[in-house]
């Protein structure tokens, strides 16, 4: 029983992390049909920006409690500078090309950004551990967890709920759904599709950067941070159904719980359990859990 509680808590924390890291990918795919490998770079950039900016401000005497806001600000900064730059500067000229060619362009961007990160921040690790322990911790089932993990869960819920609300309850969201369903007609009706693409890409990148920024306090920010996230988030959004917001949420929860259970009961299988889940889901639901012909995609 006690172990089961730990499985669920660990699973939920991991799911929250996965969801924030992956949801931007599904948003961008849903709207633009781009499987964005550079998503991992935005995650890494978010983490680097958060660690270096918050670190500098804390060293300059900022009250530690403000560091949570700084994490968010750092992610915003990364997305607002780089998102439009990449979308307007490169991607928009490529929309007529094959899906896979665009995927390769994002892969080339990923390679370039890896070295850009190295040129800016070097190879030494960055730490911004203060926010992790700042809020104290709680005890469950003989285990201690820092409250910060709840912040991560909160960020995940806020991201998911915020996205869902924007898409279904606001005018912008409805226009965006029109763009998703028929780009040509939307354009004919006077919707500025190019701007929607730019905003979507920036927003999707922002989500990746937030994922990185809020992970930064729990890890050491090092080169190669983004690589690991790419395939993991691919797996999550594919399990859920590419382009589906509830799918990404469900995918994250499934992967999170399965991984956590594996670690507790069968640690040897941790290495490939995620891909096993992905293969199983695709074998029985070839387009993922939430991707039906008539399903409403974001």
């Amino acid at each position, binding site marked *: 029983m006690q172990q089961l509680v730990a499985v669920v808590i660990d699973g939920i924390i991991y799911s929250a992390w996965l969801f924030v890291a992956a949801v931007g990918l599904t948003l961008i795919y849903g709207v633009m049909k781009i499987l964005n490998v550079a998503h991992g770079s935005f995650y890494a950039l978010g983490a680097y920006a958060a660690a270096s900016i918050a670190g500098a401000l804390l060293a300059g005497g900022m009250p530690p409690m403000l560091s949570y806001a700084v994490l968010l600000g750092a992610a915003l900064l990364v997305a607002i500078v780089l998102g439009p730059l990449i979308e307007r500067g490169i991607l928009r000229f490529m929309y007529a090309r094959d899906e*896979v060619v665009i995927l390769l362009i994002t892969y*080339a961007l990923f390679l370039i950004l890896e070295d*850009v990160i190295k040129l800016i921040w070097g190879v030494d690790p960055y730490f911004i551990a203060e926010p992790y322990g700042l809020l104290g911790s709680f005890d469950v089932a003989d285990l201690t967890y820092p409250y910060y993990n709840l912040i991560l869960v909160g960020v995940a819920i806020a991201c998911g709920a915020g996205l869902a609300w924007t898409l279904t309850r606001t005018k912008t969201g409805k226009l965006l759904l029109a763009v998703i369903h028929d780009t040509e007609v939307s354009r004919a009706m006077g919707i500025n599709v190019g701007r929607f693409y730019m905003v979507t890409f920036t927003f999707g990148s922002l989500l990746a950067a937030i994922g990185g920024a809020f992970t930064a306090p729990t890890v050491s920010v090092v080169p190669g941070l983004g690589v690991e996230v790419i395939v993991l988030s691919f*797996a999550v959004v*594919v399990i859920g159904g590419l382009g589906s917001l509830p799918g990404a949420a469900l995918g994250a929860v499934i992967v999170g719980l399965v991984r956590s259970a594996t670690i507790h009961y069968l640690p040897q299988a941790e290495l490939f359990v995620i891909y096993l889940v992905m293969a199983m889901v695709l074998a029985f639901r070839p387009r993922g859990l939430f991707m039906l012909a008539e399903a409403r995609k974001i």
Partner: protein
Amino acid sequence: MRPDRTPWVLGAILAVLLVVGPFAPLWVVFPVTIAIAKGLVALGLMILLRCGLVSFGQALYYCIGAYTAGMLGRVFELDGVFTLMLAGMAVAAATAYVLGFLLARYRGIFFGLLSLAFSMIFYGLLVKSETLGSTDGFNVLPSTLFGIRPADEWVRYAVLAAASSVAFVAALLVHRYLRTPLGSLAPAIKDNEIRVEYMGASARYAIHVKYVIAAALAGLGGGLAATTVGHIDPEMAYWTVSGEFVFITILAGTGNVIAPFLGALIFEGIRNVAFAVSPNTWQMVLGGALLAVIVFLPNGLWSLFRRGRAA
């Protein structure tokens, strides 16, 4: 109809490789051999790409080919370069035949990602197999040619000659295949699968066949890479390796069976130069070069050769 010049061009390339090989500096011979191995994999991917399918898990068969060659050497002490390559090809094709029943039902991104999942599961299994050295892998015996071990200074040339001969045969067969009714179905499947079915052909069957051929070529390339490099490890099945193969294929274009080999050669060349010129930022050079090719040559490198003729 224009006379088919491809077999002659292929033959000429083979002749050049065989004749120039002994005089080329050794540091050129090795990457060319590696490029042939990778070109074989890309050739298979090209067949799939022509019907609109992209596999992000082709490294699975590359790695199966390599491990088959390695295990044959380890367990049975076989070291004939052709035996190892053909064995790698056979095991890869057999695996693809089985997985093909599932994968032939998938299209688009899901085909790519399911094949990725399979390659990553195989990677995981190899990492877990500590008797095979886990991620460190193990050495492959130096290969022999029909039972003869060439003298040290001729080993590299012998492997190159064997590799280019095999690649020549493979490219020629694929070229022929693309002109058969089943082979020429590819663009039709890409455009409209329903019409293909109405014509009485089975798209799923055609894709299954293509998938097995692609895997066989990847296994061949893997076996060749194993004997050439002399060491194998599970990373050969990792998704980044698959990504590299896809990159080569797209870079090359689908115009001709020569294109994948050209793509592989240029990819290896760029990477080699990038390593030498900027050891600290070679990824950026590689990424920039690849981006430039995609942007300025929309139909791949092969379009450079087509342009003159189309005019």
